[in-house]
Structures are given as C-alpha cells and as structure tokens.
C-alpha cells in the first residue's frame, strides 16, 4: 500500500509539473480508478490499455484538467484474475472513492466487477464486448470494444464482398470460441459456407494439424479467430496461400511480430491503422507517438477514449456528480479515437459496422484497404 501511495504521489507530482494553468493545482483532484490486467495471461492487452489511460491523464491535466480540477487515476493490476479484480474494485470504490472505473481487461473480470459497480452506480468502462445475458441489464457498465456479433459480421461482410463463398475457420478455445459461437449462425445470412472449423487450445503453442485440416478443405478464404499468432504461422507453414481474414484482437504489433514470415496477406477488420489514421484518430496518434515514440493500436486508443469519455461527462456533471449522475451523463454518443461510440445503445457501446477499418498486412506492415463494411 505504502509504495503505491508513493507511486501515486509521484504521478501526481508529475502531473503538477506538466500541468499548465495554475487553477488546476489549486483545486482538489478528481479521482478515477482503473483495473487492468498488467500481469498474467492478459498482460499484453492490459499494458496497452494502460499506456492509453496514462497518456490521456497526462494530456488532460496538461490542458488544465476538468473545470480546473486535475485528474488522478489510481491504476490497479488484477493479474488477469477475476478474484483479484473483485478485491481491487472494493479498494477503488470504498477506500479510494473513485468517481468512475476504467477497465477491466477481461470478460470474466468485467462481469464479476460489474455486479458491484452497477449496484453502486459507478460507471465501469470495460475493454470488452457485451458478455453473458446479465450484462444487458447493467446500464452503468459501458463496453469500449465491439460485441462479438459485430466482430463476426465485420469479418463475414468482408468475405462476402470480396468473393469468398467458402471459408475455413481456425479458432482458439477462448476468445475465438466466443466469436465463433455467434458466427456459426451467420453463414447463411452472408451467403458463406464454412468448409472446415478447427479449434485449438488457448495455451497451445502449435496448431499445425488443425491448420492442415483447414487447408485440406480448400476454402476461398480462411478466418482466424484467436488472440495469438500461432494459427497464422501454422496455416502458412502448411502452405496455405489463400488470404487470411482476422479479428482486431490479433491486429496488434506484438502479435504481428510473433507471426514472423506469416504476417503477410492477412486482412483485419479492425479500428486504428496508426500509419494512416482517420481524422478522429490523428490527435490521439500524434500525442501517443510524442509520448512513447511508437505507434499505437486500438487497445491504446480504447484506454485513451475511456478516460476522455469520463472527462467529457465530468465536464457536464461537475467534479462531484451525484449518485448515478455520471452514468447518466456518459450514456449517449461519444466520438472516440477507437470509433464512434453510443453508450446509450442496447449493447452499451453502440459501435456499428461503420466503425471498422480494414487493413491489409503485407510483410509485417499495416495499410488501409478501401473497403467499407455494409
């Protein structure tokens, strides 16, 4: 505890140093919480989100905070573990008295933590799509990444419009399984036949045999639904030459690096192509590159958006929102760097097919495709 207090004091001091107008220093800072998986299995996502969150904090405070109040974000790590997330959320709500919570990174954590924040009417800005049925009634739990059905539609839409009649699917047993669960019923709607569907375990380091099975079904295209590079590499290793279409969860620089030579001829339905950003993304990309000296992807953008959305809502409610007022203020359209959100939509995110950008991976580099989903 002590160290984290020092750490917080240090970040606060840093914020003070970087803060411009004097007024931001005089008023009491507004406290926000963040629960992110910065260690454990989801660390690669959680660390990316944290970069975006901390950048947003810094930029906000440099611009003078909210109505003269600086923002202070207490970042907690849940070690990719729902139990830990539960105890952290209690720290944040009851000991730190945060106004809103950013995160969590994982679905399990979001559903677990959401039960509590919903009851306390504290906004939760989760980096997950809408999960199990209970979440539909949690109007104070906002989702900054698309629901799985939307991901599935974005992929199938591309396949349909680019001449894909037959598709092989290679998915993992976690994230991929969830998307496949929705996608399998959408084939008919998009006029797509699934010739082979192969699953590999989340922790698997190799899925060559599954890849071979997918290849043997001779599809027009292959959809990979997973959170790591394994499937891509194995598909190319067995000599698959057809295009691979994949979800945003693997459109990350570290995953692409881990693909090695396989990072070629892959199409992503994703959100942020930092090499060629959309107008609503340029500011974020520029700030990010200035701060970290590298390009961001959409998880960094989601972290940034979460903080910025809360800041925008706080501008409306003032620094001491009454119970539930902040949720109410958040519920509505918000133009983010990730995409155009509408937090009043039934899925508490309101992303649509229009939010998707399509990129082509060529020898490890992303480039924007002219395609738009319909």
């Amino acid at each position, binding site marked *: 505890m002590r160290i984290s207090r020092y750490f917080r004091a240090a970040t606060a001091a840093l914020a003070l140093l970087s803060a411009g107008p004097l007024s931001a220093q005089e008023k009491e800072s507004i406290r926000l919480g963040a629960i992110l998986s910065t*260690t454990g*299995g989801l*660390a*690669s996502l959680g*660390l990316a989100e944290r970069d975006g969150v901390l950048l947003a904090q810094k930029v906000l405070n440099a611009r003078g905070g909210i109505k003269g109040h600086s923002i202070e974000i207490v970042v907690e790590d849940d070690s990719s573990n729902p139990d830990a997330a539960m105890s952290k959320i209690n720290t944040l709500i009851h000991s730190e008295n945060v106004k809103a919570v950013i995160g969590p990174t994982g679905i399990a954590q979001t559903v677990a933590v959401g039960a509590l924040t919903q009851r306390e009417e504290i906004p939760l800005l989760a980096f997950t799509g809408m999960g199990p049925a209970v979440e539909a009634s949690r109007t104070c739990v906002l989702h900054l990444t698309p629901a799985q059905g939307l991901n599935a539609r974005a992929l199938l839409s591309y396949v349909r419009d680019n001449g894909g009649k037959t598709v092989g699917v290679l998915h993992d*047993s976690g994230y991929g399984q969830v998307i496949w669960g929705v996608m399998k019923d959408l084939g008919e709607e998009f006029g797509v036949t699934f010739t082979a569907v*192969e*699953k*590999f*375990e989340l*922790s*698997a*380091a*190799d*899925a*060559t*045999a*599954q*890849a*071979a*099975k997918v*290849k*043997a079904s001779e599809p027009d295209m292959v959809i990979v639904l997973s959170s*790591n*590079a*394994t499937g891509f*590499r*194995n598909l190319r*290793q*067995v*000599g698959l030459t057809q295009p691979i279409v994949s979800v945003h969860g693997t459109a990350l620089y*570290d*995953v692409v*690096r*881990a693909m*090695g*030579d396989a990072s070629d001829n892959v199409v992503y339905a994703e959100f942020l192509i930092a090499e060629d950003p959309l107008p609503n993304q340029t500011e974020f990309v520029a700030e990010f590159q200035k701060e970290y000296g590298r390009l961001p992807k959409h998880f960094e953008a989601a972290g940034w958006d979460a903080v910025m959305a809360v800041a925008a809502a706080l501008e409306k409610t003032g620094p001491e929102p009454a119970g539930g007022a902040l949720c109410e203020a958040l519920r509505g359209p918000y133009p983010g760097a990730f995409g155009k959100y509408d937090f009043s939509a039934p899925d508490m995110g309101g992303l649509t097919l229009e939010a998707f950008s399509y990129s082509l991976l060529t020898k490890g580099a992303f480039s924007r495709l002219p395609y738009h989903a319909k």
Partner: protein
Amino acid sequence: MTMTLVWQSLLAGLANSFIYAMVGIGIAVIYKGTRIVNAMQGDFAVIGGMTAVFALSSWGLPYPVGFALGILAGTATGWLIDRFCVRPMMRRNAEEDAFLLLTIGLAFTIGAAVLYFAGRDAHLLPGLGGSGSVQIFGAFMPVHAIWLIVISLAVVFGLWAFYRWSIIGLSMIAASISADGAETNGIDVSRMRGYTFALGGAIGALAGILVTPLIAVSYQMGLGITLKGFAAAILGGLANPLGAVIGGLVIGVSEAMAVVGLSSGYKDVVALGIMLIMMVLMPNGLLGHAGRKGG
C-alpha cells in the same frame, strides 16, 4: 479425410514430438542425476530463447554468439538454482513434495520475471536453414523442423555417450544412485548435482533456442511445454533421455492423430490421458526399465 492430410498432420506431429522430447530430455537428465522432478524445465527454454532473441535483436550480436549466450544463460540458471535452493534443501533432507513445490515456485517466478524485464511480446528467432518449408510427398515441413530433429537426436546420442563413457557422467549417475557410496569413492556429490542442474539448464535453453523459430517465445509458455515434456519423459521412464524421445514421439503423433480423427479441442486431453494411463498401467515407462522409485 485425405491421405495428404494425414501425412501432413503426421509431419506436424513429428516436429512437435521433438520439441516435447527436448524438454523431456532435460527433465530426464535432472531426474537421473538428482531424483528431482523439475517443474520449471520449460522456463529454462524461455530463458534460453529470450536471451538468444535479445542478443540478436537488441544487442545486434551474430547468430552463433546469441545461440551460445542463450545456452550459457540456461546453464547458469540451472547452476544457481542448485547452489541457492536445492543445496540448502538437500542438506536438511527435504521431502519429494518440497522439491516439486520449489520448482513450481521457480517456474512462477521466472515467468513473472520475464514479463517484467523482457516484456509481454512473443518473439521469434530466424530458423536454421532459413524460414522456408520443404515439400515432402505433398506435405510441408519447415526446414528448421528438420534441423530441430537432427540436433535433438545428436543431443540424445551425446548424452548416451556422456553417461556411458565420461568420468563426470558416470560420477553423476553414481552420486544419484547412492550418495553415500559415491561419497566414499571420492565423488563430490553436491558438485555432481550442480553439474546435473547446469546440464539440465543447458539442454532446456537449447530446446528453447531451437523451438523459438517455430513457436514464438513468450513469458507464459513455460508451464505448457513443461507439461508436454513431463508426459514425454514419463512415457520414457523418466530417468531415460532416449526414452523421452520415444515418449515425445508417442505424445506428438497421437496428438496430431487426435486432431485428424477426433475433435481438435481434445488434443491435450488425449496427450495427458495417455500420460495418466501409462503412469497407472506401465509405471516404468514404455522401455520398461525400473528407473524410478515410488509409483
């Protein structure tokens, strides 16, 4: 189901077999020399692979140097673990389960340390003989996988010769079979244990370096490959490096066949199921030598 598919899966299974075998060999070496089952063998591989990756990409060293540094890192880790953890525990005659817990704790620590110091990214190394594949009767196999198999076989042969003919190898076996007996014959038992751990670390690191062109190395891959290595080593009788290769083949090939014939989601269930059944029914492994106590 076409013949090409079966053949392709078989080839893929073969490449995996030798990955499992390399980890299994390390486990067997350490068990043979110390009677300790090492639950962090996969993390030696992570250390070796990561060191080589950083030597090449961050420090810009040539491939052979990176290769050597990776192995050195594994060797040093093995030796340090013996020196600072195993030795004090041996001195007070700790029980079997304490050693298992020690190695589990080390696996946990090393995984977390790699995440902290080396970061979350998964990394690849360039393959030996390039990154291409060769086509064998219509199925593809990465060129590097062939190198992996050749080097694994060389390691097995080298170990066999080492334990059979070299003074140190013989002393290591003697020290593990009867510490008192070895002591009276002038063998420094604790030094032999140090050598054994260093050797296990070196083999683990070598496995990691060899695997990294095929499977991206990352902080969280340790436990997964340790388990497959265990399965391979147990099938082989646990104290037998050659057996670990045969065990690895059984696991790797049956996994691949499970994917083709059964549902792909149950690949690991099949591999672990074989391990469990073998442990209960054939406690001495496929080769049948009584190489283990208990069970």
